[in-house]
């Protein structure tokens, strides 16, 4: 991204002298701005303006039901965040979700891709089967699994009973709920990423493997020294998108647990939603939004850097 901006600026600078001598055609200017205006208006209204509002309201005690009472309170909202136990809990929960779900889901996706990359009869069926949860929306997935994981009469507990495992509380226990959500999210998301990995695997030059065969490499060495490095750009893309997506977790806990039991599954975005939307406490929730947004931007830049440096080394 930054590279791209740099490149654009560079092109701009080098062509500056050309451009000043050349006149823009009025027709072009009119058409261009005509074509751009609807998009620019919408972008400013619905992307830029919310960020500005988060900035301004974050420093006030704005309560939505008393819009005329809002007062500038400086950094109070941000100080309050430091000692807000539920917010800290939701931050920890979100981190826990990200730390577990990203490696789990991506390694599942890569494993599946390796299976369906085999040139063997019937592989199309397996590909469709692994991909099938992708047709379910998050709400459908959440409801389906809540029913199946019912602690007293759910399908999963009945199946576990058949192999002699006692009934598990799953979503109704503070110690198991988040891990259950992690597992369900990985289950539902990995098929889609399998497809992306698969496209990457198909692009790897087959002669690399042949050369490795001649050198006497075993399957694991080939995987480690050919497959993984070749997949690096795709891996980077998936790590970034999955991580950012995972930080924004909200639908599954909203539908399955409501953030409970005992705040064990409440996430940052859900906390913002509860505070700002349900309780109309807009000032404080805007401050959290602001910190959260900046945090996400920094994280995505950081991951990109991490991959780039490794590449350079």
């Amino acid at each position, binding site marked *: 991204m930054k590279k791209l901006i740099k490149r654009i600026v560079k092109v701009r600078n080098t062509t500056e002298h050309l451009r000043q001598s050349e006149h823009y*055609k009025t027709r072009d200017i009119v*058409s261009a701005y005509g074509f751009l205006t*609807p998009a620019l208006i*919408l972008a400013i209204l619905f992307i830029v303006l919310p960020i500005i509002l988060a900035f301004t309201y974050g420093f006030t005690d704005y309560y939505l039901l008393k819009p005329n009472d809002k007062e500038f309170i400086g950094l109070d909202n941000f100080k309050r965040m430091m000692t807000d136990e539920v917010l800290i809990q939701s931050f920890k929960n979100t981190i826990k979700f990200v730390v577990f779900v990203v490696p789990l889901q991506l390694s599942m996706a890569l494993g599946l891709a390796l299976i369906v990359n085999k040139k063997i009869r019937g592989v199309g069926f397996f590909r469709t089967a692994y991909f*099938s949860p992708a047709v379910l929306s998050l709400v459908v997935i959440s409801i389906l699994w809540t029913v199946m994981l019912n602690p007293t009469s759910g399908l999963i507990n*009945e199946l576990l009973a058949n192999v002699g495992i006692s009934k598990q509380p799953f979503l109704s226990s503070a110690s198991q709920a988040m891990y259950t959500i992690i597992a369900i999210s990985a289950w539902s998301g990995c098929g889609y990423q399998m497809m992306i990995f698969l496209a990457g695997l198909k692009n790897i030059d087959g002669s690399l493997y042949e050369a490795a065969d001649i050198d006497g490499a075993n399957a694991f060495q080939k995987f480690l020294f050919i497959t993984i490095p070749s997949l690096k750009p795709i891996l980077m893309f998936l790590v970034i998108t999955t991580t950012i997506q995972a930080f924004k977790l909200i639908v599954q806990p909203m539908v399955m647990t409501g953030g409970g039991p005992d705040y064990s599954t409440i996430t940052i975005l859900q906390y913002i939603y509860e505070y700002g939307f349900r309780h109309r406490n807009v000032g404080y929730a805007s401050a959290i939004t602001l910190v959260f947004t900046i945090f996400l931007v920094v994280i995505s830049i950081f991951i990109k850097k991490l991959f780039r440096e490794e590449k350079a080394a």
Partner: protein
Amino acid sequence: MKIVKKTLFYLLASLVALQFLLPLIWMILSSFKIDEVIYKDMDTIFAFVPRFSDLSLDSYVELLGFYNIFKNVGNSLIYASITVVVGLTINSLAGYALARFKFPLKDWILIFIIALMIVPIEATILPLFLVVNEMGLINTIPGYLLPFIINVMNIFLFRQHFLSFPGELIESGKIDGLSEVGCFFRIVMPSSLNMYITVGILTFLASWNDFLWPVMALSNADLMPIQVALNAVFADTYNIFTSHMMAALTIVTIPIVILYIIFQKYIVEGSMQSGIK
């Protein structure tokens, strides 16, 4: 040896496949049973294997008797279609302008678009709600649809696509007397059909699956899209039979299955394309 290896492979691949398929099979099968049968079958193989004597459409008929889920499915289909048609037009026009014309501030607008791409949209959902609220558009269809009609990522994708669009085609259109707008809709759009389908399908899926924003922006029961309605029905969990719930889930999934069957190729390609920034 080779046979053994092959058998092991199929065994492993099939076991993994079951993990993904069984919940779906159970969902669909249970939607054709009554609750008594669902729970009786649960610890037997018949949870996943149909016994045709037990299957019926009763749960669908009963579900529709107390909740007209098709109304919400219809709402969602309309919302997603509007988002696709209007969104594709607005975003591709902007992408086209950035690719084809020379005009003042062009580079800055492009940098602006790229900078907006890193804004994590759902994270700013609360201030977005405030903006729409202050415009007086909460609980209206425009207030719900407009914020997600704009998609800066799609503007950028279209721009990249149009950069390599052959200029001669447009020039020949102009010679035939078409205006810039005419050229765009008569020449550029039809010859970029693949691109439009790919972006369109992804937009449709995103709109169909959206949950958080409609919860905030559309609380009116008549306007509710299907995902929100599903959750509302489900939240009333003590009053709903499992079979009815499964019927609802199955109904909601059918349009997407159809979409995937028809457009499979575009969906995967599209997700790849958005990865190459």
